[in-house]
């Protein structure tokens, strides 16, 4: 608890510092008398702690007293079902087949990731892992890349948006999306993965995702035209998808 106490003290101190200019000058502490030898002899005034409301200008303060709860990790069963639902409504084995595709080592089997995802093993008395660790995040990435790549392959082909699973929008042909076009499409994905509109997200989120998209396209631009893998459009939207499916807000609730 010591670290948090120290941090809170730090926060409080800085917070007080920010508002210091508005506070009235405090009553100065009397200078203690000293004897010939230099030792302090006068009585040290006793400081009585004041309540916040006694500080001039702070008579009426709204206090955020609502109890707070720490975010929870989405249970692995709900996470797996969400993967199935968000990426096409297939069963686990059907989705596994689709993700493995015809090669490329994009995906192994669900069994290979269960331990890293924290699935309990009741027979072996291995409990559910309700905290993240680096290996779990590595599993989120491995799975997320496979899911997003397959979604890009299917959705970014020419088909009506209503038939698309993840990228439920059209993309302009032969050019990159404008900022405004990206924003509307970003909102569709934000609702899909996080369950709320992008307008309610932190303001820096949209520009970050947009930059991610632009940078991925720019990396492709430096490669030969016939380089293997996704083209600029597909790569950039795959990368955006990776960011959503690996985001803390996706895995916490």
């Amino acid at each position, binding site marked *: 608890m010591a670290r948090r106490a120290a941090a809170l003290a730090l926060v409080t101190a800085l917070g007080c510092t920010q508002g210091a200019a508005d506070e009235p000058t405090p009553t100065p502490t009397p200078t203690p008398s000293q004897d010939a030898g230099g030792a302090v002899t006068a009585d040290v005034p006793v400081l009585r702690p004041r309540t916040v409301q006694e500080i001039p200008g702070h008579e009426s303060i709204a206090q955020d007293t609502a109890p707070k709860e720490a975010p929870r990790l989405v249970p692995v*069963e*709900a996470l797996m079902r969400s993967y199935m*639902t968000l990426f096409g409504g297939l069963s686990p084995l059907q989705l596994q087949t689709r993700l493995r595709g015809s090669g490329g080592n994009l995906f192994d089997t669900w069994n290979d990731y269960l331990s890293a995802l924290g699935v309990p093993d009741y027979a072996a008395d291995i409990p559910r892992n309700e905290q993240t660790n680096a290996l779990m995040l590595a599993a989120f990435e491995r799975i997320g890349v496979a899911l997003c790549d397959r979604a890009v392959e299917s959705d970014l082909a020419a088909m009506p948006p209503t038939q698309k699973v993840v990228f439920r929008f059209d993309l302009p042909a032969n050019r990159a999306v404008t900022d405004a076009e990206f924003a509307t499409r970003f909102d569709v994905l934000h609702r899909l993965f996080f*369950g709320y509109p992008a307008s*309610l997200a*932190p303001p820096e989120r949209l520009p970050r995702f947009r930059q991610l998209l632009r940078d991925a396209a720019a990396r492709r631009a430096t490669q030969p035209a016939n380089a293997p893998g996704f083209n600029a459009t597909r790569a950039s939207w795959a990368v955006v998808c990776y960011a959503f499916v690996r985001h803390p807000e996706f895995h916490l609730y």
Partner: protein
Amino acid sequence: MRYRYAAGVLALMMSAGVAPQVADAVPTREAYRFFRSLSIDLQGRMPTPEEVAAFERPDFNLDAWIDQRLTGPRYAERLRRIYMDRMRLEVGSNFGFVSNPIVLRRVRVRDPNNNLVDVYYRRSQRRNRAETDADFCLTQAESGIRVANNGTIDGTATPVAADVWGARTVALRPWWLYRDYRNTNPSQRVAPNANSDAVEFEPVAALMNEPDGRTPTVSVRVCREEAQTAPTGRVYLSGRTTNPPRGTPLPGNRFNNPPLDSAYARAHPTDMVSCTAGTGVSMSDQCGCGPGLERCMPGASLGNDPPAFVLPNNMPLGPDVPLDNVAQAQSEWARFWWSQEAVRFLDDLFGNDRDVREVLTGRQTMVNGPLSQFYRTMAGSTCCGNGTNFDYVEPVSLFEPAQVPADLVPQDTNTWRRVADRGPNAAGVLTMPIFLAKYGTRRARAHIVYQAFLCREFVAENVELTPSEEPNLMVRSGCATCHTTLEPLSSYFTRVTESGWTFLPAQRFPAENTACARRGTSISGICGSFYDPQFANSTRGLLRGAYGSVANADAGPAGLARAVTAMPEFSQCVASNFAESFLGRALGPEDSALVTDLTTALRNGNYRSRALVRALLRADAYRNANNLGSDTWRQGAMP
């Protein structure tokens, strides 16, 4: 709640088939995240965009939405997980249910035409020939081989003479190949559904095909005694009462001595015994494996636990969508379905909003085909051992076979039926095989009940254990700290054998038995299996485990269930378990008001979990979860 959207967003959503209503107010981020939390907890997944759009509509009724989802498989799974995480009701291969009376092994021999044929047999099968009694039905002279109990084969198979072949073996159509195995001429051969992801009835390939590995097996060859179908058989006396001197050649050059006539058999030479009890199988040469060999488990080799059925190793999302299907050892069939019984029982209890106390007190259960087979024909195979010394040969079951649906066949893996009443000895999960196997000792069983249903721990920190002759752990220095409570609780399981489910009825095994009183310095040898010499006195012996409380011993697991569910801590513990699970953290002193409210909701709701969950979802603690500093979010901004 009514909302507005940017024009571009609206167009995109409509092109994707999602049509929100245009309205005035914008919900907060917390509202959206709360809805997401509800979806994760009640639907077992994140909400779809369509569901979010519905949430945004002005006519959306969140309370009704929640109520509609306080039912169904995902909701039940959510609550079931609370108790499965606590009790972990699965067992691995360390609990080997390899009971000789039910295990069929097979030996490859040569038929009269010199073809290799697998012949099934049971190691414990009684036969009226000393050469083959409780052994393979063909001698080395007849088949060229002899079979050791450890699965090794000695010799080389030679064609069996036709008359011997017909006398010793018979062909039949067994339950693992034919759904209609009870018919005179079974014809509905099992064909696993290759297109189904769900757990199906699927014997391993070696059981389905001939030794060539390709030709589908139409019928199997089995030793004739095993093919007998009668439900009872007469006690068989071989006349053997002692083993021959070491070194004496054994009949038929067999490896082990043939079995001796037991004291019970000699005392009851004309009695009929049940062929579903292990004791019956061990005493009668007329007890076979029943119609279609339904009382016995097939195995594709001579091994101790041969491969038998294909089952999943991993199914975190349930048996409808397993992640794999692998050939498993024979004993896994029972273990797998035992665990599924507990899962279905809990799902039924929570999904149908039954009284949560029935987790412990309920006499109902859910069974499918394999479980029906187990309870009707196999559960008694572990009875009765030395119980015959107390004239206990017909098991009194925790689940009365007569209550088991008779029409379900083992192939009905996906047909689940509720049995309303297992019988007077049943008590929720406490008398299910999975619980009794997982928690093999009386104390382990009592401990998990104490922990999972009263939310208490036995903690004896820094207690000195000094050597002592005192057998009573409730008074022994150091041990008493925990055992004062643990022993009386453990006593409730006195009448259920440890590491098993054999029930010891009071009329055969009185808790205080004068016949097992101390004579001289100890009790009689036959009493020692069931009565504890350390607690015997000159007037009576005491059933093992009963010293903590004779009354509890007689009350049995059902008595424990009544006692625990009557304690105020039970409902508090239910409330705490639910709260911890939904809040995703351990509770602290600051949560006492929440627990009180939830406990009240549970009691006022007649112990229905739905009332508790409803109260929990409406509690501030649940709504405030994932509170990422909401006051700092930008409100209502448009892109």
